[in-house]
């Protein structure tokens, strides 16, 4: 529904369109949010996903979480359920897909669990991440979780496994937005309270910030010309761009660094080290790149180099 772009239709057509508008309004009221501009479901196709070799002999008795998972028979991993490209739950069959999900699966395989049959994903909202790790609802958390000093006080981290950065998602017919400097007077959408929104308000005050609860609403507004750009970590934006490449694309250079880490309970240093070692091994044997190519790579962006881990190699070599 973008009447602004098209020439005025002849009268009978206009009447038909008015009817359509009324129907849309009713549908809007019924469904809560118009999906008329939504892209068709596409994205990573299962089947093309890489296979991870399971380390059957793995054992980590010094980690309470690992021991508990072993006796339980499966790992419980916290994830995002609403981010195409990184962590998305298919509402039809409940299966998860995305780059973070693949990272979770390869790490589970390294910890001695079957990545498909012995992993349970649990959708955890952003505000709940620290709490769910502290009280053991999940064994570890993989979901666009930026490592920062405030969070390090509450939870432990392994990784980073990916270096994201804040960028801009615009409509493909947008000519004037090339980076954060060209945002003056334009409406830019992000999630309420998120770091990208705070950065936009602090560093680019000339842009008009719009904040909704979810990026999905932002993208819907972008497709309906209500906002001019959506800004957040490029991983999330690439996920939306990969779904609808004819209408959306990501522009400009990254203007922040967001090292994504794997959240673990604060006391689980042994588990964090094991995850770091597993990550290093999967980066070396090519699994990391295969996971990227099968998920975020679908947007057309080539795989970057994985970022160096926070823990040094010497630290990892020490037996816990």
């Amino acid at each position, binding site marked *: 529904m973008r009447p602004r772009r098209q020439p005025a239709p002849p009268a009978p057509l206009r009447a038909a369109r008015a009817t359509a508008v009324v129907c849309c309004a009713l549908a809007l009221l019924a469904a809560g*949010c118009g999906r008329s501009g939504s892209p068709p479901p596409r994205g990573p196709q299962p089947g093309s996903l890489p296979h991870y070799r399971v380390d059957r002999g793995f054992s980590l008795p010094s980690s309470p979480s690992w021991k508990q998972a072993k006796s339980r028979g499966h790992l419980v991993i916290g994830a995002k359920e609403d981010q195409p490209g990184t962590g998305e739950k298919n509402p039809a069959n409940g299966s998860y897909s995305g780059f973070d999900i693949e990272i979770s699966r390869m790490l589970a395989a390294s910890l001695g669990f079957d990545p498909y049959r012995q992993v349970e994903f649990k959708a955890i909202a952003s505000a709940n991440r620290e709490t769910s790790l502290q009280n053991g609802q999940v064994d570890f958390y993989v979901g666009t979780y930026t490592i920062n000093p405030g969070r390090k006080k509450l939870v432990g981290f392994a990784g980073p496994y990916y270096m994201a950065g804040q960028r801009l998602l615009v409509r493909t017919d947008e000519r004037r937005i090339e980076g954060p400097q060209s945002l003056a007077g334009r409406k830019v959408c992000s999630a309420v309270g998120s770091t990208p929104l705070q950065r936009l308000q602090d560093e680019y005050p000339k842009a008009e910030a719009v904040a909704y609860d979810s990026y999905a609403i932002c993208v819907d507004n972008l497709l309906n010309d209500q906002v001019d750009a959506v800004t957040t970590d490029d991983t999330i934006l690439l996920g939306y761009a990969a779904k609808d490449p004819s209408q959306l694309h990501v522009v400009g250079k990254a203007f922040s660094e967001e090292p994504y880490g794997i959240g673990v309970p604060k006391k689980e240093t042994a588990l964090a080290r094991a995850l770091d070692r597993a990550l290093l091994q999967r980066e070396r044997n090519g699994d990391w790149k295969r996971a990227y190519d099968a998920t975020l790579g679908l947007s057309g962006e080539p795989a970057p180099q994985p970022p160096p881990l926070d823990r040094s190699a010497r630290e990892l070599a020490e037996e816990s």
Partner: protein
Amino acid sequence: MDVLTDNFALYGEGFLGTLRLTLYSSLLALVVGVVMAGLRVAPVAALRWIGTAWVTVLRNTPLTLLFFAMLLGLPRFGVALPFELFAVLALGCYTSAFICEAVRSGITTVPVGQGEAARSLGMTFGQTLGTVVLPQAFRTVIPPVGSTLIALAKNSAIAGSFSVVELLSTYKTLNENGYSVIWAFVWIAVGYLLLTLAISAVFNLLEKRWGVAR
């Protein structure tokens, strides 16, 4: 404690946002609610229908849906207003349906004879309602209107999801910046308590001054 002291500006901004939303929406809800209550007891059938339709539609629509319709629906038809105004409209119209019913229940407590006496003196419907019935009804509706306005203050939290600055959504910023969610919520709860207790106090005063002594 340092969650509050470190982020006093953020909390203050959120609190003022909630205060503004509550104040403006309350005024809108009270005005529209009383007018609609008047319509619902009007002698003209068409006016009664308007009042009934207003209450039926708004009282039975989830507030979140109303927000979606106003903030995401209206712009598609070229109506683009500031977010805060949209929020005040949504909250005010929604609450007006409840105010209307509370006021109408007050109107029915006024004995029929009062209205009949006023009409037999030659007063118009407007005069009867405005000078005889509503002043008496007002005294009985103080407690339910107070409850409705307290509910309004808390309902304003929904606006935070739609680009309006208000108290509850400050927790998202605090959580993002690595503060403990639990303490962030404790101070938010204190903020809401300040507001709702103030409303309670005002209505206690009104009740002491105007309420019906039985």
